[in-house]
């Protein structure tokens, strides 16, 4: 019994070491395009910082990589999120969306945050700083609602 467990443990250890060699794609870019959401709409500092810490890692072309994002399998997990997250909503490319798409993305933004679907739980579990408090939620949603109104009236 003990012997079997030891064997399993060794396999697990080997597996863990081996997957560190799985290359992780780095989602990093220094360029902030003119189409960037924050650059275009100048949110208040607090809102900007919430968006950057809680959303930009998965929804922009530049992910912040603290050490735990570099180890596997976390890196793999994150890479998958980034791929899907950017496909759905890329804050860096927001300005390139059609007016119609901008409006519907803002609508999704509001409902996702309102219902605590975003940021993803599986992510805030490790990245504690990305968690959005109720007060922060309120702040962000109020601002996005205003933005929605001003875009609608353009």
């Amino acid at each position: 019994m003990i012997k079997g467990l030891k064997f399993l443990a060794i396999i697990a250890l080997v597996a863990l070491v081996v997957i560190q060699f799985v290359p992780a794609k780095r989602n990093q870019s220094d360029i902030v395009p003119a189409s960037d959401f924050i650059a275009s709409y100048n949110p208040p500092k607090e809102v900007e910082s919430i968006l950057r810490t809680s959303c930009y890692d998965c929804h922009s072309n530049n992910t912040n990589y603290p050490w735990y994002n570099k180890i596997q399998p976390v890196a793999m997990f994150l890479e998958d999120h980034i791929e899907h997250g950017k496909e759905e909503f890329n804050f860096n490319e927001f300005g390139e969306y059609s007016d119609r798409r901008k409006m519907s993305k803002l609508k999704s933004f509001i409902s996702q945050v309102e219902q605590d679907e975003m940021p993803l739980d599986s992510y805030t579990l490790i990245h504690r700083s990305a968690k959005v408090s109720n007060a922060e939620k309120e702040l962000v949603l109020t601002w996005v609602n205003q933005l929605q109104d001003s875009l609608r009236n353009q």
Partner: protein
Amino acid sequence: MKNLKPILGLMLLAILIFTVTSCRDTKKEDDHEMDQDDMEMEHDDMEMNDSSMNSSDNMAMDQNKSESDAIVVNYLELKNALVADNTEAAASSGKKVVSAFKAFDVAKYSEEEQKELNDIIEDAIEHAEHIAESAMDHQREHFEILSKDMADLVAITGTSKKLYQAYCPMFNDGKGAIWLSEFKEIKNPYYGSKMLTCGTVQKEV
């Protein structure tokens, strides 16, 4: 031996993640294949429509209309699935809406209309795709945006169906939401059986 548990845990996690990611990829491929099947079916439908239209007097007009009709028919099917609180039926109708939008040809419209139509189509496909993959409350959220796209679409293309635009004041935190229906009688797709008759007809489309 004390370290055994976390290590085993990590191994399980690694295996789990491998499986999850590989599952997702295969699912995606399946979706694509299915999309193509749907699309072919759609083409068949459309050819049939076209041939039946040949006999009509005003051919050019009717051909425009028959193409948006394929979208309208599938949208109405989706709407009725939501009225019936049927997630699976809504998901499969959502897929058909995607294919119908993909098959829609904007070439015969003016440049300005084409730009508007392309924006509508891009947005509508995205939301219909979500409907094909989501749980009921998400389906309804995306249906709200899709309905707006539909209203704007038929405003440009027209439709040979008789449609009503209905309005539910409660949905979306009291911001309200519209939908299109083939019935004058209210059957609410946003709340289904919970509030079936909530809403008013705003206009005939």
